[in-house]
């Protein structure tokens, strides 16, 4: 982007933060010093169990924090929530955050990652024998518009020309895969393989984007630079208490999906069996010897390399690993 846009951006962000601070739209929210507004990315499901446990078990309260958990949905833009001051902390996708920072000059910084390996992948029926990108040639793949960029990058890495694969929209409904309208879908592998097997009685298989040249983090913990400066101590406490929530969850992955059936997960259409599968599958994608949220130098360089494939040249200082020492 040219410098004109960036200047306008800075001006408007200033106005935005000012507006939020004066509470004109009732979004200033965090009045007390230890209150944190946390913007999630989707409806309540096991992807966010750690935060729910930290709230219910008083882990945040023990740190002197009061966390306001806001579920997400298709209309929620986490970066927007941060820039408008609606949220202090948000979970984001690394690609959109990198674009906001590099292309548009947004003052955002990544302070941790929930998933070491993104759960996004390509899911198909085992009978279709799709084990990697090359097996997709001549097939029809349902891909959500939001993930199209990742899918295209995967094809590029595998040196498959884009016209060899028919990509159609995917609306988070696996029925077309079960019915055979499409050969594969792009989604989180923490959920769909189980549902496909449950509904169709056929074996499902998948591969992760992470394993085919796109070693991306996902559900990054992101804040604005101002928040990092002003609320650093609270952010450390937030990471510590949230990590404790995840540790508690993985101590017995069966416990909380069942426990939250009639509270956090009530009325959202999922089943306890599907949630259990989700929780057990995500464990291997999140845990690391240094603790949940940790970002190693190696992992960061691999993400920077992968982002370069999307034409995003990010600096190392997009990632701030200094908080981990205090967590």
């Amino acid at each position: 982007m040219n410098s004109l846009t960036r200047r306008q951006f800075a001006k408007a962000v200033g106005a935005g933060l000012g507006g939020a601070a004066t509470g004109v739209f009732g979004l200033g929210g965090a009045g007390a010093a230890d209150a944190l507004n946390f913007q999630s990315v989707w409806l309540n499901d096991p992807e966010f169990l750690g935060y729910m446990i930290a709230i219910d078990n008083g882990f945040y309260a023990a740190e002197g924090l009061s966390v306001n958990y806001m579920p997400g949905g298709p209309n929620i833009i986490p970066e927007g929530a941060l820039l408008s001051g609606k949220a202090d902390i948000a979970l984001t996708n690394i690609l959109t955050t990198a674009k906001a920072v590099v292309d548009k000059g947004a003052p955002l910084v990544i302070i941790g990652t929930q998933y070491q390996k993104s759960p996004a992948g390509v899911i198909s029926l085992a009978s279709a024998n799709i084990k990697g990108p090359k097996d997709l040639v001549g097939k029809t793949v349902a891909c959500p518009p939001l993930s199209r960029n990742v899918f295209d990058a995967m094809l590029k890495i595998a040196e498959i020309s884009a016209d060899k694969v028919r990509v159609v929209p995917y609306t988070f409904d696996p029925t077309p895969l079960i019915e055979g309208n499409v050969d594969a879908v792009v989604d989180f592998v923490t959920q769909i393989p189980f549902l496909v097997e449950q509904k169709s009685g056929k074996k499902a298989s998948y591969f992760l984007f992470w394993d085919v040249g796109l070693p991306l983090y996902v559900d990054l913990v992101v804040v604005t630079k101002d928040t990092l400066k002003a609320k650093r101590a609270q952010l450390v406490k937030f990471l510590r208490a949230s990590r404790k929530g995840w540790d508690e969850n993985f101590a017995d992955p069966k416990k909380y999906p069942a426990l939250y059936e009639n509270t956090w997960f009530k009325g959202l259409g999922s089943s306890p069996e599907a949630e259990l599968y989700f929780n057990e599958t995500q464990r291997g994608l999140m845990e690391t010897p240094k603790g949940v949220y940790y970002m190693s130098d190696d992992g960061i360089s691999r993400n920077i390399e992968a982002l370069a494939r999307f034409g995003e040249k990010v600096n190392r200082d997009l990632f701030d690993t200094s908080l981990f020492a205090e967590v």
Partner: protein
Amino acid sequence: MKLERLRAIAIGVALLLIWELVGRLAGRLLPPPSEILAQYWRDRDVFPAHIWATTRSAAAGFLLGNAAAILAAIAFCRFPLLEQLFRGVNIALFTVPAIVIGPIFVLVFPGDLPQIVLAAVLVYFPTMAAMLVGLNEIDPRLSDLVRIYGGREAALMRFVRLRSSLPSLLAGLKVAASLAVLGAILGEFGSGVRWGLGTFLLGSLSQGDAPRLWSIGLAATGLAMIGYGAFALIGAKTTGATKAVTLANKLPDRLGDRAGRRGGAQRLAILLAAILTPFVLWEALIAATGLSPIIAPGPIETLSYLFVSPDSAAARATLLNAVGETLPIAALGLVSGLAAAFLLASFTVLQPRLARLVLPVALVAQNIPLVALTPIVLLLFGRETLASVFMAVLVVFFPAYVLLSQGFALTPHAARDLVRAYGGGRFKELRLIATPYSISYLFAAAKLVAPQALLGVMVAEWLLSGRGLGNLLNVSRGNLDYDMIWAGAMVSILISVAAYQSVAALERLWR
């Protein structure tokens, strides 16, 4: 009458049985009614909370949107210049894609307000347009009477216009009631609220659970039908008043017949102001909300993105290409939808009994959330043009049908009796009386649904085909490319305005 009711019940039962049978054969895609009922029973502890949340938001949006619509219609009738200035704004409000305003509402409004405001926005235009027609369409004998007694515009408004606008207003409110439900669900679907049918739908979508998707869809339909039915009932009870025989042909051209008396330069100035007003409001709103231009660029940023920035040529090419794919399908969908609506509305004259059966089916088709229908549309029509046209027809058909049958219903009885007295059949009645009398309603319907056809195709492109403008906006979303999204929205609104004005021009030619 009793026999007729029995027959209607028999046909209803037969339809349900056919559905049951087809559902049992079709497997996963079209669950039979028995399975859907069983699903309601299994979900009985969560449905009340979801339905209550949606009802609350829809009702609040309905009140808010209609209050604004009624006040605006009165103001526009009193000061036609105002209507001209705000015409662009009105159409923009009606045609702005939810993908653009949804995320903005979530950032700007707290709590349940995002879905309430979305419902209000959807409701505003149809009610305002219907009310304005009613306010302008008055019996000349009554207005003469008021004038003879020295009454001015205020008295005319009080004694004549407000009263005679009631049938039109109630027709608008019928459509508005179902749109309010749709808007509330659309808002819940996007904004990550804890309860609501939209939330339930989003959560259930990934579970591949057709009976549940249908149970949610039909609950939404039921809510919309209750709203529609309530206002239809009020309408039937209150609007038996006599009307002048010459009335329908005298529908004033609300696109500015009073402005027609102005000079050329003045008209040009008004036109320019009407074009500029939405852009000025756009800039003002963004300044007032202080939103980051990353997600909410202003008009200057958007125009410079399309025409000045280094990448503007590529952006223009991408956008034009997408519009080129979308536009012909939308036009086809508009024409087919209007034709279908006219055909079925003519049943109200030709086959009144059949017409009564069509309405519930039309209501179900109109109000079932499109995402729940997607697997079936996919099965029946595939992913290409046919599916997109079908989705456009689905969106266009219902509001057009309501307006057209309203037009047919308001045909003066004296004129109909004349045809009958001379031995003319129902076809003659349709051709000679009902159609000419309701032609202004056909134009009103075309104006109302032309923008909707474009939105319908965009939804199909997003859900099914993965082409065109609908897909471009969603892919841009994945790239956080809000410059492109707002540019696309601006173009789609401009197309809608152009479609609206072309219908208006056609209407003027017709007269």
